[in-house]
C-alpha cells in the first residue's frame, strides 16, 4: 500500500522548507454518513512527530478540527542535501504511519 504521507523538501540559504500531506479522513465524530444516516465515529490524527536524522525537530498535537488529509508545512535549519527527514503520525484508533524523505 502506498504511504499515507507525502513529503516535499527544498533547501535555500541554509533553510529547509518542508511541505507534507498526510492522507487521513480526520472524522470529527459529528458527521453523518450521507447514505446510512449513521454518525461516523471520530477518527483523527492526534500526534505527528518529525525527525531530521535522529533528532526530533517538530512535535504536533492535533484535535479533530485539523482538516481531512492534513497539510503541514514548516521551515528548519541545519540540514543538508542527502539528509533524512522522517514524519510519523498516530491517531485516536492507535493506527499510525511513518515515511522518510531524502532532503534535496
Amino acid at each position: 500500500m502506498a504511504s499515507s504521507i507525502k513529503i516535499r523538501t527544498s533547501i535555500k540559504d541554509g533553510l529547509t522548507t518542508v511541505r507534507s500531506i498526510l492522507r487521513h479522513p480526520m472524522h470529527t465524530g459529528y458527521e453523518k454518513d450521507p447514505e446510512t444516516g449513521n454518525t461516523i465515529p471520530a477518527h483523527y490524527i492526534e500526534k505527528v512527530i518529525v525527525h531530521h536524522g535522529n533528532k526530533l525537530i517538530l512535535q504536533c498535537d492535533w484535535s479533530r478540527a485539523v482538516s481531512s488529509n492534513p497539510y503541514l508545512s514548516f521551515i528548519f535549519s541545519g540540514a543538508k542535501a542527502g539528509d533524512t527527514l522522517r514524519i510519523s503520525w498516530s491517531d485516536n484508533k492507535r493506527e499510525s504511519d511513518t515515511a522518510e524523505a531524502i532532503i534535496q
Partner: protein
Amino acid sequence: MVNSTRRFFLKALIAGSTLLVGLGGLLKPLIAFAERNKEAFSAKTEAEAIAEFFTNQDIIPSDAIKIGVHDLVENGAVVPVEINTGFPEASSITILVEKNPNPLIANFDLSPECSGFIATRIKMAESSDIIVVVRSQKKLFSARKFVEVIEGGCG
C-alpha cells in the same frame, strides 16, 4: 557557623544539580512522548482551553505574530492558516478557534532548529476569531484574527 552554612548550601547545590542532570536524562524520552493534554483538547470554551493548556501563565498580546488567513472563507472544512511568529526563538505555536465546539485545534512544539513558521489547514464551525499563542523564551504571546465563514465545516 557562616562557613558551615555556606558549605551545606554548596553541597545541596551540587546534589541538586546532579539530580537535575539525572532527571534531565530521564525526562527526555518522556518529553518525546508527552501525554496528550486531554482536558485542554476537550475544553468547550476558549478560556477553559487556555486555562487548561497554559495553566495560569500570563499571555501578552503581540503584533509580531502574523496570522495568514483569508478574512472571508467559503468552506469552513478547509481553512488554510499560515503563522509567522516573528520571534527568533519560538518554542511552541498553538492554534485555537474561539467558536469551535472544542476551541483548541493544534499545538506545535518546535525545536530550536525550527523557524517560527507553521502552515496547515483547519476546520471552522462558524465565523470566529482564530487565536494563536506563541511561546518564546518562556513567555507567552498571542494574536487573534476574525474570519468570516460562509459554510461551517464541522460536519
